[in-house]
């Protein structure tokens, strides 16, 4: 995912989701950094850099994408500018995992990529 510029110049149109598919012809080949939302404190506290989480689709009580630790416990939910594609791909049987890039003070940054 590309970063921002900040300060000064600006474009005419905002272009959300600068990350996303690394290959234009495969909408599921998404690589993206994000943070864990709705964190489950007891699970997140045990995460460390390099841990690999499983990305899964939860449908009840509402549809959301979650990250699970290696013991199967839910660490939290994820948001993404490519959530629509991620959900469609998970529903189609595509698999993603997420590596923990940093875990400091309850902020867990992960990178989602095809498993």
């Amino acid at each position, binding site marked *: *995912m590309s*970063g*921002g*510029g*900040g300060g000064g110049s*600006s474009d005419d149109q905002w272009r959300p989701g600068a990350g996303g598919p690394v290959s234009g012809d495969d909408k599921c080949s998404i690589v993206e*950094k994000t943070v*864990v939302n709705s964190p489950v404190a007891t699970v997140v506290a045990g995460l460390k850099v390099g841990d690999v989480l499983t990305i899964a689709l939860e449908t009840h009580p509402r549809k959301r994408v979650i990250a699970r630790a290696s013991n199967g416990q839910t660490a939290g939910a994820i*948001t993404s500018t490519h959530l629509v594609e991620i959900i469609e791909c998970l529903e189609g049987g595509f698999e993603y995992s997420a590596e923990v890039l940093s875990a400091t003070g*309850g902020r867990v940054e992960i990178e989602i990529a095809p498993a």
Partner: protein
Amino acid sequence: MTTIDVVGGVYGERCAFPDWDEVYGSAGRAAAGLSGHVNEVRLHTVIPKPHQARALANFESFGIHVHTHDGDQLIGFDYLHCLADPAISPPPSAIKQQPAFEVNADVAVVFGMMECKPIVSAGLCIYDPQSPNDPKYFNLTGSKAKRLVVIANEGEIAKLSGKSGYEAATDVLKSEQAELLIVKRGLDGAQIYDSTGCLGSVPAYKTKNVFTIGSGDIFVAAFALSYAIHEKGPLESADYASMAVAQYVETSAMPIQTFADASSTKRSPIELAGGQIYIAGPFRELGQRSTVNEARRLLSKLGMKVFSPVHDIGHGPADKVVKHDLAAIENADAILAILNGSSPGTLFEVGYAVAKGKPVFCVGQNMRSNDMKLPMGAGCVVHNDFISTIHLVAWRK
């Protein structure tokens, strides 16, 4: 059945350091923050049709009911770091105004929008004008509320009233006929006013990370939850809001923390340490020099005196400049070391400072873990985020 209607902008947000690429905006963030705390969160906003599917997927994953109106442009903010001035797309002068929409609510959280002026009718409204350059009085927007709470930062209060300090706050409170006015003051916390004057203040709290984009939105959401839904007092609600902000600033995560989590989380109020700070870091490339300049600016803004070798000594032969560098380290109260990319000179300064018993705070981006062993093992504070490290220096003990 408890419901909150959140009215305001949903905007793109991108930050390079730390990495952040989301579509929230003030109203989107407040709605996400409130999700799960009440039976229903309704978000009323403008999102252009081509962007609706992407935005809605995220909001629906929080369980938010989105009432969206079509627009011409998705507005976005692009930050280099979270305290930098953002580039706004499209430029504010090119933002097209959208037709007003109406919202009727028992409890409404309303943010000023860049592209629309919705008409709100509420029993109790928590209003944030959300405009550093052109804030609007709620009672001049065509909206009305039986009970009104205004939450704004010091700059917005000054813009609205043309005054400053106590006089500005009481003036805005009176003009709005609000029952409360909360003045957000950044690291200085918040002050709470009613018709009798200043009721008191609450502090801002120290955190392990500092991510400030949208922290004010979280304050508004948490205050609304406490004051409007749980009917807690103004000071108690403001303190809960400040705790919720700390949790968000630290984790970048939503929803906002529960009352139980907030009361069980031990946090210390922010007290700025001041003192003399030595900036250790390479400065021979554009990026390196820009980082030093920015560190110098931000440390000064946070109340510290700054010694920067390139600014305060300049370039010169080793036998002339190094003794001044080392003397400055000895005179410093703390060291900010920018270790990014491994600089032998910077690591030497860190070692010298450690030997002299100085507290050392290191920004360590793009570093090999082996290169970090000595600073970490020697007790230096190491963080991979620039803005977080600057603040850890600012409120060090």
